[in-house]
């Protein structure tokens, strides 16, 4: 096979001097190993579900979880507050800068697995203590991203997760839909692990506020912004399935925030 001509071609290889050995402690490998292998993330409590219909879809969603910061200690979410600070669109864009910009699907093509990107962008961001939670959506895709500010002012992704599925149905004006509710946890070898309880979905046009209750009894105010609602709490917490909605006219009503499966 190695004729003089092929050897001559080998010498023209632009990458022949490229050294890129893979090492077991490479960060990029750790990020992959820290991500879920399953269509439905494997370290989720049973109550957490992906977008309705996603499990039945022909495509398999890839959940990507990048873990950088250790949240293994009980004080890790110190400063978390039951009332969020809602961020402006400008701040949201800045803090989402290090979040995923697309969700991926893998489909079986004729010549092997095909990866497809679905672009996602931030629609809601809320700050509780040191942490900012960003909700990202795209065409049939949603993502969550928890970031923390570094000393330099840049943001660092603590955990992120993207899921593909059927586009969410728009709720009635005085109703909410729930796309995800539950606890995600992650681990990355000995260096860092943590857990995040979150819930999010669509909010009708007349929904002004959503208040949820942790199983500990503590009440938590969700953020409602631009037709979406979202809430998150430290991982040890979990959420009750009934939320109180407050409408733009001041009236209130209870709503279920469990995921329909």
């Amino acid at each position, binding site marked *: 096979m190695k004729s003089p001509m092929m050897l001559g071609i080998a010498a023209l290889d632009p990458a022949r001097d490229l050294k890129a050995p893979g090492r077991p402690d490479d960060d990029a490998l750790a990020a*992959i190993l820290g991500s879920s292998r399953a269509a439905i993330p494997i370290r989720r409590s049973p109550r957490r579900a992906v977008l309705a219909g996603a499990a039945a879809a022909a495509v398999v969603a890839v959940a990507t979880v990048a873990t950088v910061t250790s949240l293994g200690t009980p004080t890790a979410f110190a400063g978390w507050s039951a009332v969020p600070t809602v961020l402006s669109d400008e701040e949201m864009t800045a803090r989402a800068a290090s979040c995923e910009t697309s969700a991926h699907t893998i489909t079986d093509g004729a010549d092997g697995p095909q990866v497809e990107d679905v672009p996602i962008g931030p629609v809601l961001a809320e700050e509780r203590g040191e942490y900012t939670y960003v909700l990202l959506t795209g065409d049939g895709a949603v993502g969550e991203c928890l970031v923390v500010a570094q000393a330099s002012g840049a943001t660092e992704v603590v955990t992120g997760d993207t899921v593909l599925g059927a586009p969410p149905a728009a709720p009635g004006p005085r109703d909410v839909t729930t796309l995800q509710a539950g606890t995600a946890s992650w681990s990355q070898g000995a260096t860092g692990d943590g857990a995040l309880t979150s819930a999010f979905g669509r909010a009708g046009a007349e929904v002004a506020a959503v208040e949820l209750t942790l199983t500990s009894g503590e009440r938590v105010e969700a953020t409602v912004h631009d037709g979406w609602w979202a809430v998150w709490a430290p991982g040890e917490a979990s959420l009750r399935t009934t939320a109180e909605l407050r409408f733009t006219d001041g009236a209130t009503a209870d709503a279920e925030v469990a995921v329909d499966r």
Partner: protein
Amino acid sequence: MVEDVRARELLTQMWVEQHEAVTRFVARRVAPALVDDVVSETFLVAWRRLDAVPEDAKPWLLGVARNVLATHLRTHGRWRALGVRLEREPLPGTEGPDDVAADRADLRRAWEMLSDADREVIALVAWDGLTTVEGARVLGVRPSTFSVRLTRARKRLLAYSGLPSETASVLRKLQEAR
């Protein structure tokens, strides 16, 4: 589904053994800034599909990398065709004796006249060091098909490299005009 601990071992081993090969494969096809992303995405697919990865992982990984590249091409429109790039023109005087330099220049010119498809099969063998069977796996074709393509590509390369340079440049202009 492969059990978790075993899965981590398998992927780590694959990363250690194949990272360089996959990186080189990708680096020949895209701008340097994008190489790491494409490589990571390729191994992410392997992670998700460990059950599907054959024992000889390299052709499978290169095939996935190729699909990931094609996806980026479609999604972002920022990739040129999957054409394999050639080493940049060397500086004069760095190529050794004149006759070697002349041969090299002929070969370079011939290479540039090949179609992307011809270049790809040759590169899989000459640069990625794959066998016919492995190369076929990357492209998702039968080994016999790959063999035929490789033989034809080599014939064209040989023919082009034997042409006087004036003829070659006329031919190239004709090809570019197509």
